[in-house]
């Protein structure tokens, strides 16, 4: 019975199973594919928990557009403030005289050109708008949290529109999330606003937000009252200077006002800027002041603004980093090559153009003393002696020969100078050769170079110091650096106030604001109100904010770029004269190379001499075209929205 029925029983079971499979498998046809994806959070779920909303907000914070940024070192030292010591950059930066209307970055990995000056992220703006709208409707958040999150998103939106305005002038101002109804696309095509309307929008948002955002000077990475005021101060100042100095380049404007601001509006904007700066200076936004923790070493003090994250009263708003979570390799790619934590570094080599702009302690400008009046070399016992008596910010911004980084001396010298004028040098770092009259080879150039065309060596004689992280391991690929990118800091507020006051004819307060910044740099002799000039203002911003990106925006808003980068080769005589003049030509990055003097028996034996040098990799003279003042709106965008007008001179 059992045996006989096994077959039947099996068939029976099989039949049941088959039935089961079909009955289970066969859902209603219309329901079959209707399964909620598990990896996508719906709106209601995403806004069901305050922590969840905060993480969405955190993502929105990271999507701000910074130029320069620490994750991409070529954004930091362009415009001949530095020489780029990396194979493959020579051609793009020093053999190429133009920037392209989109800000040429260089070829990407496939050889196609890539660009830096074209942020156009309306997806980000849409998501900011959506965030605000959805946050408003969320039921799981209490009213206070809701209001603060929405205020932060509003701040980010205003900040991003400010960025777009800096690059493009007027852009479409979209303040709600747009939906396509499937028929009429023209309602989604928004024309460009006027440049002045963009700045008005940013200023209005900042003025509204400063009443909502928390007044807390210890919060650096999130929007605060201080950040809103700083944005207002900067935006109004930019608008004012575009109105005033834009008049010098009438062809850089559009009849509809999308580019260019009427000159008559300059004073109004200067007043807004000055007022916003004064609100921060008066302490109404929190306890901000200049960073002065190390009064005995002003250079280290200046460098520490960027790496000291504890109780840093200077910094107002940053893009923050944290090891293991969000980090960058700025130290890794720029650390002094000799004894580096990786077999690389030294990419940004500050140029002599910038280094000589740091003034002497008596408030005068002078080139470095390399030769006396008769043309003979001047001998220095220590490498650093030639840089003595200068603005303390020099050694805080630049690693000079003879100084140290992470307590390790750099080894920068280009060769051995003989008495007959010949130079003995080598083709590799720390090369050894036998000097005349000796029998044993010895080192004839530094382990940090400079050697022309050898990447990662200090080809201008300098490395960058600003934003380099002194922490152990910061130069390693596996660890990285958590130094923050400073977006607004108190020194800028002071210099904004100085500029606005000067333009409004208040030289006294202008001198007062500027002297505060200068004293911190060791320039203790105050400038008198009569000494404050346009050149002084431009100069002070250039050296205080070197490699922080201000130089780029300043050259644009002062309409100086086409005068400084006029396509004419920079001669040595031009380089060394008129230092401190705002429109001084700077088309090629020069270097200042130390050599060891070899003259056995002479008192000068073993001392250092310096030579001004232009790398043979610098073949082009930079030429800023009028079309460079505002980034190109690419044809793909123009085609999608016929209401957009083209930029001038493009």
């Amino acid at each position: 019975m059992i045996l006989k029925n096994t077959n039947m029983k099996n068939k029976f079971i099989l039949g049941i199973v088959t039935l089961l499979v079909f009955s289970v498998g066969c859902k209603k046809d219309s329901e079959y594919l209707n399964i909620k994806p598990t990896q996508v959070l719906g709106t209601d779920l995403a806004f069901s928990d305050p922590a969840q909303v905060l993480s969405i907000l955190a993502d929105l914070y990271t999507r701000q557009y910074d130029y320069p940024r620490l994750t991409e070192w070529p954004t930091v030292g362009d415009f001949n403030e530095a020489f780029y010591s990396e194979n493959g950059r020579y051609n793009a930066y020093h053999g190429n005289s133009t920037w392209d209307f989109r800000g040429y970055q260089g070829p990407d990995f496939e050889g196609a050109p890539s660009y830096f000056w074209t942020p156009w992220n309306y997806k980000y703006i849409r998501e900011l708008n959506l965030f605000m709208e959805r946050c408003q409707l969320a039921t799981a958040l209490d009213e206070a949290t809701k209001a603060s999150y929405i205020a932060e998103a509003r701040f980010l939106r205003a900040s991003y529109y400010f960025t777009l305005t800096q690059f493009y002038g007027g852009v479409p101002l979209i303040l709600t999330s747009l939906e396509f109804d499937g028929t009429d696309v023209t309602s989604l095509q928004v024309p460009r606003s006027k440049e002045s309307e963009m700045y008005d929008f940013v200023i209005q948002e900042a003025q509204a937000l400063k009443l909502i955002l928390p007044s807390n000077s210890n919060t650096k990475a999130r929007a605060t009252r201080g950040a809103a005021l700083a944005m207002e101060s900067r935006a109004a100042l930019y608008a004012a200077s575009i109105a005033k100095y834009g008049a010098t380049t009438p062809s850089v404007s559009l009849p509809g006002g999308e580019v260019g601001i009427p000159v008559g509006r300059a004073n109004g904007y200067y007043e807004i800027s000055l007022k916003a700066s004064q609100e921060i200076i008066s302490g109404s936004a929190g306890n901000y002041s200049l960073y002065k923790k190390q009064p005995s070493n002003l250079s280290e003090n200046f460098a520490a603004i960027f790496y000291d994250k504890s109780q840093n009263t200077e910094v107002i708003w940053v893009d923050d980093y944290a090891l293991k979570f969000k980090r960058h390799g700025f130290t890794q790619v720029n650390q002094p090559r000799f004894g580096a934590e990786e077999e690389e570094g030294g990419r940004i080599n500050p140029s002599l153009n910038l280094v000589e702009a740091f003034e002497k302690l008596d408030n005068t400008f002078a080139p470095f003393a390399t030769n006396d009046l008769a043309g003979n070399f001047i001998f220095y016992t220590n490498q650093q002696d030639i840089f003595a008596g200068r603005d303390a910010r020099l050694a805080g911004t630049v690693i000079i020969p003879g100084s140290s980084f992470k307590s390790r001396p750099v080894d920068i010298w280009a060769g051995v100078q003989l008495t007959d004028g010949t130079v003995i040098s080598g083709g590799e770092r720390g090369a050894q050769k036998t000097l005349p009259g000796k029998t044993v080879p010895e080192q004839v150039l530094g382990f940090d170079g400079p050697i022309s065309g050898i990447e990662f060596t200090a080809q201008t004689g300098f490395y960058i110091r600003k934003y380099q992280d002194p922490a152990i391991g910061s130069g390693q690929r596996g660890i990285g650096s958590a130094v923050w990118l400073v977006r607004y800091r108190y020194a800028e507020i002071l210099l904004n106030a100085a500029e606005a006051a000067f333009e409004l004819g208040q030289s006294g307060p202008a001198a007062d604001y500027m002297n505060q910044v200068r004293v911190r740099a060791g320039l203790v002799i105050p400038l008198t109100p009569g000494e404050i000039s346009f050149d002084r203002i431009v100069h002070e911003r250039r050296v205080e904010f070197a490699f922080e990106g201000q130089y780029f925006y300043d050259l644009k808003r002062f309409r100086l770029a086409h005068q400084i980068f006029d396509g004419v080769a920079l001669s040595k005589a031009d380089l060394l004269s008129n230092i401190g003049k705002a429109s001084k030509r700077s088309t090629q990055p020069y270097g200042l190379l130390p050599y060891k003097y070899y003259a056995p028996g002479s008192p000068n034996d073993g001392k250092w001499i310096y030579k001004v040098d232009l790398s043979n990799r610098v073949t082009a003279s930079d030429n800023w075209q009028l079309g460079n003042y505002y980034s190109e709106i690419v044809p793909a965008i123009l085609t999608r929205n016929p209401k957009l007008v083209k930029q001038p001179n493009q």
Partner: protein
Amino acid sequence: MKTKSHYIPFLALCILLLLSCKKDNFDAPKASLTGQLVYNGESIGLEYNKVNYELYQPGFGKTGPIGSTFTPEGGFSHLLFDGNYKLVIPAGQGPFLWKQTAAGKPDSIAVTLRGNTNINIEVRPYFMIRNPQLSYSAASVTATCRLEQIVTGVDAKTIERVTLYISKTRFADSQTNIATAQVAGTEITDLNTIVLKVTVPTLVPTQNYIFARIGVKFSGVDDMIFAPTIKLNL
């Protein structure tokens, strides 16, 4: 005979493939559109990769330009399909005036392309370089020329500088040169006698010829106007 029938499907497949290949492909564009910038029939020299132009072919939905830059001799060339095109030089481009519409935008030139076509684009440069003479002697290059003002009135531009470029290649301009000499516009007293002299540096690797070219830059205009490039034997 019977064995051959095996080939029939194979053969059919081959024919099918050949035919479909023919069907899928378009003809390559054949009509060549060439042209040059002229003023009263005289060609205008420019800098390599500096002066843009845009070609539009309306009537195909989205509008986007086919763009490029003029050659140093002021010419351009495209291989295109027959059709109706519009050529425009964007605002602010070139050392010359380009006619504008009433709205102040650059006007376009209609180009009807049926087979190979050559067009002359008439423009009005701010100045013309007349009678450029270049010579080499005693390790230096001397250039003389005359400048004639073409555009006068409200649109007139002043000369910012006159520059002599020498180069190892035919591209003698601000981007590739080995030496330059220049005179600022404010230092020019007589537009009829402009003299520039530059010493030829050591050529590495050596060559027994160089190229030289005179360019003029106008204030408030990006692009320079150039005289023809001259090859000089050393």
